[in-house]
């Protein structure tokens, strides 16, 4: 099955990003294709490479980056939401990209499921 994910909250402040990640991992483990993770609202801040959490904590942007590169998951931040929140190409973690809402529409159409995580 092909699954798209929509993530609407930023990292650390809400659990949404953690749940989305755990869900994506489990879906891949079960043999599904996680086609894309689309970031909206504060969700766009998931992919800033500038984050520098404590050593003993998870690094959320690095984790998305790894998921993207290892399993071909597109990790995409909405451009309008990104501009409002200070996310641009210079700060993007590897494997992520900035795109428009049209791409989300494509994701919604081409996947069997779109699962939303947020606040």
């Amino acid at each position: 099955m092909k699954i798209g994910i929509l993530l609407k909250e930023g990292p650390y402040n809400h659990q949404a990003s953690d749940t989305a990640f755990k869900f994506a991992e489990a879906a891949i483990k079960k043999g599904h294709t996680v086609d894309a993770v689309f970031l909206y609202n504060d969700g766009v801040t998931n992919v800033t490479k500038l984050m520098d959490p404590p050593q003993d904590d998870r690094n959320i942007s690095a984790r998305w980056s790894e998921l993207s590169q290892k399993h071909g998951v597109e990790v995409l931040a909405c451009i309008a939401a990104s501009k409002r929140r200070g996310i641009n190409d210079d700060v993007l973690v590897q494997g992520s990209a900035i795109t428009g809402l049209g791409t989300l529409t494509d994701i919604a159409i081409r996947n069997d499921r779109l699962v939303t995580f947020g606040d």
Partner: protein
Amino acid sequence: MLHTINKSPFENSTFETCIRFLLPGDPILFIEDGVYAVQAGNRFSAIIANTLKNNPVFALQPDLTARGLTVVTEGVQCVDYEGFVGLVEEHQVNSWL
């Protein structure tokens, strides 16, 4: 259709709102702070028991464990992230954020 709820019913109306739109047979899955709804013996146990008459009710076990909730209202089924994926395989998803 799978309905997911991620807010504590004590602080937020999402749970009450969601169940108004629920059709018989459709499953609910409680995740994140939503899992406080299924803790046995709290203010919402009666509503959960009532919902169970027509709808299967699930809760995400890792979220229960993280919150120290060891006893859930009778009839609630606990699933891990793979079980969450399993529910998504069977149903379109309605995430009540």
